[in-house]
């Protein structure tokens, strides 16, 4: 079985500081990895490395096309939420999945609200809905719990559960506890998984 994400002896240095060295990890269908560690330990960098947005100093990163939810909203502020999300769904050729994804994150009633009026929790739900609508096998979630209320966390956990059941994989970097069954990777202590 081909893994959806594989790190082979990956070393990453940011701003002259060694974040991790010789990191190996492998994620197959149905698997989920919870990356933890103190501030500045390289959780976000690991996610961006897996997304292909950063390049490793040494080692190899192999992955299938991922979907990413991070602190950046990347939605046009002046558009209604549904239209702003549809731009991305069309680009990925998965416009048919958008309504279900918005409903799953509890955003259906906000479809006509301009993005600039969303609260931070609603904005986080929107980035998660974009991931859910993407059809990507590999989900990369950077601090997915930030700003989410209990209802939002429940919805996210249900989404992740369904995604794993359908053969997807998830990497989440988060301080908070994530519901369900996750493998754990702790950064910031000479980490090797």
């Amino acid at each position: 079985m081909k893994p959806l994400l594989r790190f082979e002896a990956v070393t990453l240095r940011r701003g002259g500081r060694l974040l991790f060295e010789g990191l190996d990890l492998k994620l197959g269908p149905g698997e989920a990895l919870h990356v933890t560690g103190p501030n500045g330990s390289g959780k976000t960098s690991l996610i961006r490395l897996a997304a292909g947005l950063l390049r490793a100093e040494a080692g190899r990163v192999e992955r299938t096309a991922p979907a990413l939810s991070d602190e950046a909203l990347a939605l046009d502020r002046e558009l209604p939420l549904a239209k702003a999300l549809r731009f991305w769904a069309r680009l990925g050729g998965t416009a048919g999945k958008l309504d279900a994804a918005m409903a799953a994150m509890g955003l259906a009633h906000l479809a006509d609200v301009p993005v600039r009026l969303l609260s931070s929790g609603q904005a986080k739900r929107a980035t998660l809905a974009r991931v859910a609508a993407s059809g990507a096998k590999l989900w990369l979630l950077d601090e997915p719990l930030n700003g989410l209320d209990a209802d939002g966390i429940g919805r996210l956990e249900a989404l992740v559960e369904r995604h794993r059941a359908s053969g997807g994989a998830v990497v989440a970097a988060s301080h908070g506890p994530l519901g369900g069954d996750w493998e754990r990777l702790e950064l910031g202590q000479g980490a090797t998984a």
Partner: protein
Amino acid sequence: MIGPVIARDVRRALGGAAWLPVAFFLLVATLVPFAVGPDARLLERIGGGALWIAALTAALLPVERLVEPDRADGMLDQLALHGLTEEAVAVARIIAHWLTFAPLLLLAAVPGSVLLGLGAEGLRSSLAALAVGTPGLAALAVAVAALTAGLPRAGALAGILLLPLAVPLLIFGAAASGDGGSGALLLEAAVSLALCAGAPFAAGAAIRAGRT
């Protein structure tokens, strides 16, 4: 694949202040007669060049908004994740920028040429020179915007980068504005093409290098 991206960029540019560079262009063109005096023969002789200086300074205005907002908002990251190369994003941005900048500029060149006392012949050659030069100018603006995105005082830095690089375009463009029959228009077209061909690679590399 880049069709929807171009459509989005055009919509955002038109929703923003697309008229601002054009108003600036007309303003600069208006200042010239005040600065050099109302001598019609002198104005007609320098009119083509003055239009080009106005066009260059107007091209500088939107540079800060071309790439930086999308970089800061993660838009460029998401585009990469959706399978678009940074070069393709730059091409889309150049096309969208040209579409929202050049036609308005060409329209404004008509009253601009009247202000400078250019005759019908001068207007025709100026319009041709601007039409040929603006794609290169748009490409240069996007490349410089990508190079300076995220830097402090990016606006001033962009001016220092863009204006010298635009000098070949200015030389041949102004010459073609003055005399439409000379070979200057062809040389201007060559410069414009070279800028259009090179800018996406420079902008793409700059976007990649600017990621943190």
